[in-house]
Each structure stands twice: as structure tokens, then as C-alpha cells.
């Protein structure tokens, strides 16, 4: 059974190849069946594998397969191998399941697009790359998936390529993440040099024997991988590409934000957990990067006017929570939040696509309003998604996973009050921006009339995702609320269990505070956008209000700094030196030669008198030289 695991990434890959080669000759239904079908089959295989993994687990809850050698040079012997454990199982279940729903949704959403086959080809490539990334048993194979993910996102963000803005967003996404990838690559060289292998399990086994706790090299390795993770997962300071990435079709955003791409960094750190435990400094970096990112993106999210952009900042912020979790040893918490986030974020983006379709491709939330009555189904599922995002207490999945993270931020030996408080403030912000979206889009007076009715391929995935956005939380409850700990029981077969320093009373208090934070956010949103809409407007009229708004709106000026100090100087310098300054030297030589040639040519007058003069002058000089020497 487990041997079939290769089909999971291979099926979408076949889909990609098939659609690339024959896509232009196939009918639309055929393309849909291949494009969504390949992912659907992959999801089925995954379900079967997950089922047997849970019911009849392999020895020690892990199993590895090697399919072929990649290369073998001087002891460097990476293979095409797959490693399956609880972490990988959770990842592939979420990726294929959510990915499949997004594909189904796309068959309707992209139905009228000329590049239908191309779209599904790229989407399948995306799925395949991400599945390789999470299944690879060694870091080089993982890197292949890693770069494949970057490539697919580039292709999909720039899918509507005739608009230069889309192309620039695509290039930006690729280049920013590539900065991280380059650091990641150096990390691989370091790991190979010191440990002699890139096999993940061997690295995790050997590292503690070769490196002392907190040793410089281990820290360097962990930090280099962290830079890679930060790039892919859109964390500080490489988060700038994600808000622009919404240039792609909306299902692409759903795929990037929920199932693939941005969670790659979270996965990498979770997978290399032993390395980070060896490098406490690097691990605390992870926590603080997470905390600062979640706050920064949270503040940016509350002032966005573009619906998709607001969702993009919310993703950065939620991934920030996952990084925070990884930094405080809440390995399973990060993974739980990943799974829950995948459901509600896919839901939110897909619902946003339906909203945008219903209002004639308008994305500005300030121009929407009152859509509650017009598209009731979309309203309800969006409300559920937003509530899960806001971690509405007790009834949403986001609550349970965020609580698990905040609990560790407080109670783990690696947590502290600052990290916890950052998370709580973030929770208030999340509540605020999540419900702000709901109120702006669905309440208030209707500004656009629509008679849009989503078809089944759009509605059914939305309903399914809404279901999971509520119920996937109940498989893992805090100890004081219930004894259901199915998720962590499963993931602890693959991830380290963290120590907890506080007791049940503290836990109960913290749950109350976290719940309150979410509700305070809801209340502020209600106050500012329903009860007293002038409040927010008036606040923006004050000069500090508008300055702050501007600052948050543009993502805290990161883009400005990068453009001013890196992109523009590089572009200008390169353009200025376009003709290759070094060649001026050779051209100079050529110029001197030609001039000399010309000068000597001048002497050749054909005039006997001049030659005679030259002779006499030369003779005189020679005699003079002889006499005076």
C-alpha cells in the first residue's frame, strides 16, 4: 500500500506533462477531467495511504522508499526517495484535499479563460512540486520541489501575462523567494560538508553527535535554512512578494496561501526540528520573526481596501503564528494551525473569488457592501471562514490551533511573556480585520446590484471547506476543555513533544484572555464599521491617522526601502554600464593603435625632400648620441 506513495506527486506531474503537450488540442471537459482528475486521484491515493497509516501503521510510524539514485559523486549521493511519517501524512492529506477542492472550483471559475489548459497544467505542476517537497527524504530532492513551487507560483501569478503589472508581480515573487533559496542552498553545502549527507533523517541523527548544543556551525546551518523558509513563507523581511502575488487568478491565491508555497517554510523548519533544537539562538529567531511578522502584517491587514490584499496580509500574519509556534517548540501546534488555516484560508479566497465575480471584478471593499442578501451562500461561508480566521472561541477551528500556539508561547520553556503578548495583540488585530472584511463586504448599504449565482463547482467546495473550518478544530482540544487530543497524539509520532511549565489554572485563564482578545477585535470592527461608520473615516482624516494608515497600507515601507536601496541602484548601475566599461580599455588600445597608424602614415608623403631631411636628421641624432655618450 505505502509503496504507492510515488503516485501522489506523480499523478499531478503526469497531468502537467499531458496538458502541456496536448492541452491545446483537448476539449474543455477533457482538460477539466485531466487537470482536476489527476489531483483528485492523488487525493484518493493519499486518503488510502493515510487510512492505512493510521489503522495499521508501519514500524515506528515511519517508512522510507528509495526509487532511484540521482547522482553519485565522491560520496555525494542524493536519491529520489520518499520518507513517510505523521508529519508528511498530515501535509499530503491537507495539500491534496484542499488542492483538489480548489481545482474543482477552478473548472467553473476559469471556465471562460483562453488559457484553460495552461492554467490547469501550471496548477498541477504546483501540486506536484509541493507534494515532492513534503515527501522528499533528502534535502536536495526537497530543494527540487522547493524550486518547482517557486516556478509554478511565478507562472501562475503572471498567468494573465499581457498585463505588465502581473508579470512584475510574478518576477518579484520569484526573485524575492530566490534570495531565500540561495541562502538555503548555501545551507545545504554547509550541511553536506559537515555531515557528509543530505538525507534528512541522517542529518537529524548525526547532527547532535557532530555538533554541541548551540555550536556556531549548527546555528549557521539553522539560520541559512531559516532564510530560505522566510522567503517561501513570506515572513520578515522577505514578506513583500505575497501581497503582490494576488495578481494571479483567485484560485491561484487560494492554492498559494492555503495548500502550497507559503507553508513550505513552516514544513521545512518542522521537518528539521532537531537542527533547530541544537541551535537555540536560531530557534528563538524563528519565534521572534513569527511574532513581529504577525503584528506587522496584522496592522497592514486592517487598513487594506482591496479584499484580496487584505487576505494576503492575513496569511502573512497567520504564517507568523506558525513560525511563533515553531520557535517555542509547539511543533504540533504549528502543524495544526497549518491544517486549520489551509481550510479557512482556501475558503476565504475561494469565497472572495465568488464575491469578486458577483460584483463585476471589483476588488475594492469600500465599493462593495450589503451583499449579504444578494449572495447568501457566499455570505455564510465567508462568515464562517472569517470567524475561523478571527479564532472565534469554541466553535471554530482557528480558535483551537491558535490557542495551542499561544499556550506554548506562554508555558513552554522557550516561550515568554513578550511572545505571548505579541500573539494576543495579534489576535485582537485578527478579529478586527477579519470582521472588518465581513462588515464592509456584506453589511451596510448595497452599492452594487448583482444577480450572480455560483454554480455547483463553486458552491460545493465552499460548503465542504466551511464544514472543515468548524469541525477540524474539534480533533484537538485544550486539556481543560476536553480530552480529545487526536491530532497531537498522531503528530507526536514524528515531532518532538514540548515541555509545559504551567498548570491547568493558568491554561484556563489564558484561554479566557485569548477568547477575549478575539472578541475585542470583533467588537472594535462592529463599532467602527457597523455602529458608527464615521469613526474610522474621521480617524483617517486626522494627520497622524492618515500617515499611519498610509504607512500600514504600504506594508511598513519595506518595498520602498528595497526599491530605493537595492532594485533601483542595481538597475541604474547595470543600465549605465550597459556597454561594458571594461571594453573601453580595449577600445582605447585600438584607438591608440589607429592614431599611431595614422601618424606614421602621415610621414609617408612620397616626397624625396622629406625623406632626405629625415635621413639627415636621423644621422645627426646618431652622431650626437655617439659623441655625447
Amino acid at each position, binding site marked *: 500500500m505505502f509503496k504507492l506513495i510515488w503516485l501522489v506527486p506523480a499523478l499531478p506531474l503526469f497531468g502537467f506533462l499531458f496538458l*502541456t503537450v496536448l492541452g*491545446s488540442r483537448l476539449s474543455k471537459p477533457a482538460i477539466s477531467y485531466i487537470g482536476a482528475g489527476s489531483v483528485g486521484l492523488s487525493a484518493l491515493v493519499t486518503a488510502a495511504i493515510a487510512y492505512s497509516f493510521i489503522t495499521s501503521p508501519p514500524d515506528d510510524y515511519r517508512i522510507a522508499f528509495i526509487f*532511484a*539514485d*540521482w*547522482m*553519485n*559523486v*565522491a560520496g*555525494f549521493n542524493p536519491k*529520489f526517495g520518499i520518507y513517510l511519517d505523521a508529519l508528511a501524512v498530515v501535509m499530503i492529506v491537507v495539500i491534496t484535499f484542499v488542492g483538489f477542492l480548489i481545482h474543482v472550483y477552478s473548472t467553473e471559475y476559469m471556465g471562460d479563460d483562453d488559457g484553460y489548459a495552461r492554467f490547469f497544467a501550471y496548477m498541477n505542476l504546483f501540486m506536484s512540486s509541493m507534494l515532492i517537497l513534503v515527501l522528499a527524504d533528502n534535502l*536536495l530532492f526537497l*530543494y*527540487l520541489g*522547493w*524550486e*518547482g513551487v517557486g*516556478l509554478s507560483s*511565478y507562472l501562475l501569478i*503572471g498567468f494573465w*501575462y*499581457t*498585463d*505588465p503589472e502581473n*508579470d*512584475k508581480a*510574478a*518576477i518579484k515573487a*520569484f*526573485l524575492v523567494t*530566490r*534570495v531565500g*533559496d*540561495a*541562502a538555503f*542552498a*548555501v545551507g*545545504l*553545502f*554547509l550541511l*553536506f*560538508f559537515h555531515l557528509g549527507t543530505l538525507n534528512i533523517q541522517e542529518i537529524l541523527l548525526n547532527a547532535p553527535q557532530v555538533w554541541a548544543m548551540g555550536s556556531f556551525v549548527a546555528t549557521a546551518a539553522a539560520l541559512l535554512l531559516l532564510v530560505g523558509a522566510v522567503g517561501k513563507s513570506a515572513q520578515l523581511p522577505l514578506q513583500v512578494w505575497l501581497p503582490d502575488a494576488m495578481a494571479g487568478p483567485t484560485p491561484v491565491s487560494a492554492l498559494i496561501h492555503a495548500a502550497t508555497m507559503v507553508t513550505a517554510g513552516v514544513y521545512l523548519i518542522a521537518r528539521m526540528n532537531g537542527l533547530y533544537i541544537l541551535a537555540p539562538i536560531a530557534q528563538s529567531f524563528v519565534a521572534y520573526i513569527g511574532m513581529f511578522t504577525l503584528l506587522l502584517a496584522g496592522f497592514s491587514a486592517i487598513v487594506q481596501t482591496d479584499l484580496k490584499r487584505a487576505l494576503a496580509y492575513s496569511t502573512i500574519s497567520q504564517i507568523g503564528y506558525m513560525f511563533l509556534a515553531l520557535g517555542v517548540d509547539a511543533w504540533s501546534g504549528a502543524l495544526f494551525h497549518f491544517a486549520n488555516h489551509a481550510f479557512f484560508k482556501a475558503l476565504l479566497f475561494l469565497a472572495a473569488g465568488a464575491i469578486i465575480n458577483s460584483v463585476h471584478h471589483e476588488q475594492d471593499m469600500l465599493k462593495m457592501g450589503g451583499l449579504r442578501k444578494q449572495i447568501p451562500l457566499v455570505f455564510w461561508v465567508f462568515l464562517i471562514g472569517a470567524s475561523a480566521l478571527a479564532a472565534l472561541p469554541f466553535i471554530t477551528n482557528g480558535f483551537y490551533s491558535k490557542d495551542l500556539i499561544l499556550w506554548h508561547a506562554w508555558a513552554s520553556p522557550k516561550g515568554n511573556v513578550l511572545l505571548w503578548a505579541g500573539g494576543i495583540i495579534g489576535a485582537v488585530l485578527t478579529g478586527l480585520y477579519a470582521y472588518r472584511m465581513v462588515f464592509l463586504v456584506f453589511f451596510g448599504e448595497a452599492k452594487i446590484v448583482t444577480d450572480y449565482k455560483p454554480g455547483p463547482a463553486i458552491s460545493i467546495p465552499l460548503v465542504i471547506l466551511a464544514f472543515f473550518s468548524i469541525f477540524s478544530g474539534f480533533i484537538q482540544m485544550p486539556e481543560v476543555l476536553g480530552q480529545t487530543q487526536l491530532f497531537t497524539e498522531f503528530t507526536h509520532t514524528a515531532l518532538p513533544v514540548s515541555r509545559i511549565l504551567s498548570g491547568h489554572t493558568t491554561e484556563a485563564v489564558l484561554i479566557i484572555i485569548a477568547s477575549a482578545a478575539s472578541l475585542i477585535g470583533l467588537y472594535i470592527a462592529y463599532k467602527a464599521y457597523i455602529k458608527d461608520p464615521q469613526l474610522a473615516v474621521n480617524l483617517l482624516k486626522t494627520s497622524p491617522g492618515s500617515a499611519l494608515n498610509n504607512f500600514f497600507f504600504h506594508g511598513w515601507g519595506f518595498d520602498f526601502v528595497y526599491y530605493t536601496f537595492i532594485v533601483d541602484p*542595481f538597475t541604474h*548601475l*547595470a*543600465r549605465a*554600464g*550597459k556597454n*561594458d566599461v*571594461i*571594453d573601453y580599455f*580595449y577600445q582605447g588600445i585600438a584607438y591608440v593603435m589607429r592614431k599611431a597608424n595614422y601618424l606614421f602614415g602621415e610621414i609617408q608623403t612620397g616626397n624625396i625632400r622629406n625623406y632626405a631631411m629625415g635621413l639627415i636628421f636621423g644621422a645627426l641624432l646618431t652622431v650626437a648620441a655617439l659623441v655625447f655618450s
Partner: protein
Amino acid sequence: MILILLIVVPFLAGLLAWAFGKKASFARWISLVGLAIDTLLVAILWFGAGNSNDVWLRSVNFAWIPQFGISFHLALDGLGLVLIALSVFLGIISVAVSWTEIQDRVGFFHFNLLTVVAGIIGVFMALDLILFYFFWEIMLVPMYFLIAIWGHENRLYAAVKFFLFTQIGSLFMLFAMVGLAFIHYQSTGLFTFDYFKLLGTPLTPRISLLLALGFLGAFAVKLPIFLLHTWLPDAHTEAPTAGSVILAGLLLKTGAYGIIRFVLPLFPGASIDLAPVAMLFGVLGIIYGAAMAFAQTDLKRLVAYSSVSHLGFVLIGIFAFNELALQGTVLQMVAHGVSTGALFVLVGMIQERIHTRDMGQMGGFWGKAPVLAGFAMLFALASLGLPGTANFAGEFLILAGVYPVSVKTTAFAAAGLVFSAVYCLWMMYKVFFGPSSKETLPDLSLRELSIVFISAVVIIWIGVHPQPILNKTAAVMKNTQSNMAAAHHENTLETRFVLNKLIR
């Protein structure tokens, strides 16, 4: 015997093409036949090599000008075999791309083309220094004609520049060859230009350094290293497509080959001393080449500058002196030859269609010629080193091998991975994406499709399964590594000796 045939067959085919060149299709077909026979010969050598524990697979050696100790000495090892296979492959590609592009003096064109290929094959096998120099020069003259006669607007300037740069570089090499032979004569009484006999000639460090620099004079221009690279963009841009393919795919590789074959074994100590400088120039080339590629508005020039960047990797790989990096350079050479060759082919196809190379006049070609665009994307991705392509395997092995030697070099070269993405994506954006330009652009014909398809298969095949190539060159590179390690040991001993003297 088979080694001589490898050189003679393409040369004869070229002669026939010239002689009966009145009929253009005859010239084309006879060239293809010649190269097909060579392919067969390469296949015999490749699969008949058997156990590759022996470094040298085949050799021929007979006296040529015995008075001066010059012999006709050819020998083939794994490295030569791989590079000859690449030469024949790119030779066929070159003939195929010229099928419609070249309409003028077709016979003479193919004579020149095949003579360059024959010369290059000779270079990869010659083990007598003078014979090597002979083939080295044979490459040069027909290449000059290819650029000067069938090139584009500024062809004469580019051809002369190419000739002067290479010729001056070769002159230094000739001096160094003769110098080495004389020194060998003084110490042994035997005047010879034979590679094996000259190996291990005792040299003082200063002389060794001078001679190494002499050889490097020729190789560094060809490679090219940073500062000596300015002939390359002109020559590549002005040459006809076939010329660009041969230049980028093969001529540059002769520089790298020369360093591995001659500079390291003959002057190991000097090579070790030069390594930090080579690393520096390699990194400068990687970054400067990439930045210049990004700045270009001429599509072909962009691709040309990307070669400067890619060959920077080859330079640092060679001077890391270990098997990992050296094997990486082999893959990088093959990968660069095929992928950059294919990019030049695609540029040529675009130019043939719209009669310009100015990227300002392109844009939105994806919608017009999706097949062409798709292949361009693939080779651009290869060029930026996407895993799964041969280029990635090469660059990764090089950097993994350089890391133990110099972390700093690795870090800066890894930054090159970002810069290569910059110019590749910029190129894709300017040419294939964005708003549609007015030009009409028919998609690929079957002939064109086959050319790029085969290149694509090779790039991906080597990308996921490089082992057949690596196995061929493993013995050579292991040998090189152990020789360099031994020399390194001596060098450190010597340094220690000098240091001890100084302390006393």
C-alpha cells in the same frame, strides 16, 4: 585509428561540401552525414569503453617532426569523450539551424563549420603540445570566416576583435610551450613536446608560475574570465546562429578543458598559488556577467553575457581541485553548451522571423508562438539553474565542492543564482510576456521543433540522471584531485621550509 577518423571524417565532409557546394542541399546533407558518422564513432567509443578504471581509453602516437620532438599523439580519456560527444551534438544542431538561415556560399560555410568542429575534436584529444597548438589555431581561422562572412551588421569588427584576442592569448601559450620544452631539455637532455614526458618537469616556483600564466593566457581568453571577456559579446552577437552555438557551446569549453588538461597537471604548485585569484575572477565573472546580461537590450547579447556568468562557475569549480567540483564543471560545461546553444538557436529563429534582436520591439510572443515560448521558458529556467535541469546539477556540484575550499566564494557565487534569475526572467518578460507587439511570429516548424526538443530532452535527462556522464569522467577527475592533493602537500611543505628558514 578511430581517433583519427573522428577528426578526419568531419573535415572531409566539409571539403566535399565546399567542393560540391553549388548544390546547397548537397552541402547540408553531406555535413549531416559526416557528423552522423562521427556520432557513430563516439557511440562506439562511449559504449565500447568497458571498464573505466583506466584513465586513457584509446591513443595513437607516431612521430611527426622528430627533430623537434613533435609527435602526432592523440589520446582519449573520459573528459575528452564527453566533450567530443558534446561537439558532435552541437555540430549537428549547427548544421540543422543553418538549413534556412544560410543561403549564401553554402558550401564554404559548411566547410568552415565542419573544420571548426574537427579542430575542436582535435583539441580535446591532442597530447603533444605543438599538435594541440595546431588544432587550437585550426579552430580559430574558420571561426573568423564564419563571423566575418555570414555574420550580422557589425561582423567585421567582431571578427577582428575575436581574432586578435584569441591570437594574442595563444601567443603567450606558444611561448610557454616552447619555454617548458627547453627547461625540460635542460634538465633531462630530451627535447620533446609530449604531454606525458613533460609532466613532472622540475620547475622553480617562479618559472612554474610564469609558464602557467602563459598557458592561462590562451585559456583565460577563451573561457573567458572577467576582464578578458569583451570579445565574447561582440563575437557571439554578430556570428550567425551556428557560429554562436559553436562559440558558446564549444570554443569556450576548450578554455576550461585546457586548464584541466594542461595547467593543473603541468603546474600544480602554481595552480594552487593562483587558486584564490581564480576564485575571485570566477565570482566577479558570475556577478558581472549576470548584471551585464540584465542590462542588454539586444536579445542575443543578453544570452552572450549569460555565458560569462556561467563560465565563472566553471572557473571556480576547476580551481577547487576536488572531484565534486570538477565533476560539477563537466556537467556545467555540457549543460551550458546545450542550454545556451538552444537559447541562441531560439534567438536565431526569432531574428529570422522578425529581423531584429532588439527586445524593445518584442513582447507578448507567448500568445503568438506558444511552442517557441514554452521552449524558451524551459531553457531560461535551465539557465537560471532550476533543479531537474543539467545546469542545476552542475552548479550544485561545483558549489558543494567549492564550499570546503572557500565559503566566501560559495556565498558570492550563490548570490549569482539570484542574478541569473534576474536576467532570465527579464528576458522572458520582455520577449514573451507583456502586451503583444505588432510583429507576426509563426510558431516552430517541424525541423526547428526537433532541434529544440532534442536539446530539451538532453537537458532534462542529464538533470535527473547525470550518472552516465559522471561515470565517464570519474576516473579523470579522481586522478586530478589526487594529483592536486599531492602537490598541495608538497606546496605546504615548501612553504613550511621557507618559513622555517625565515624564522631561523
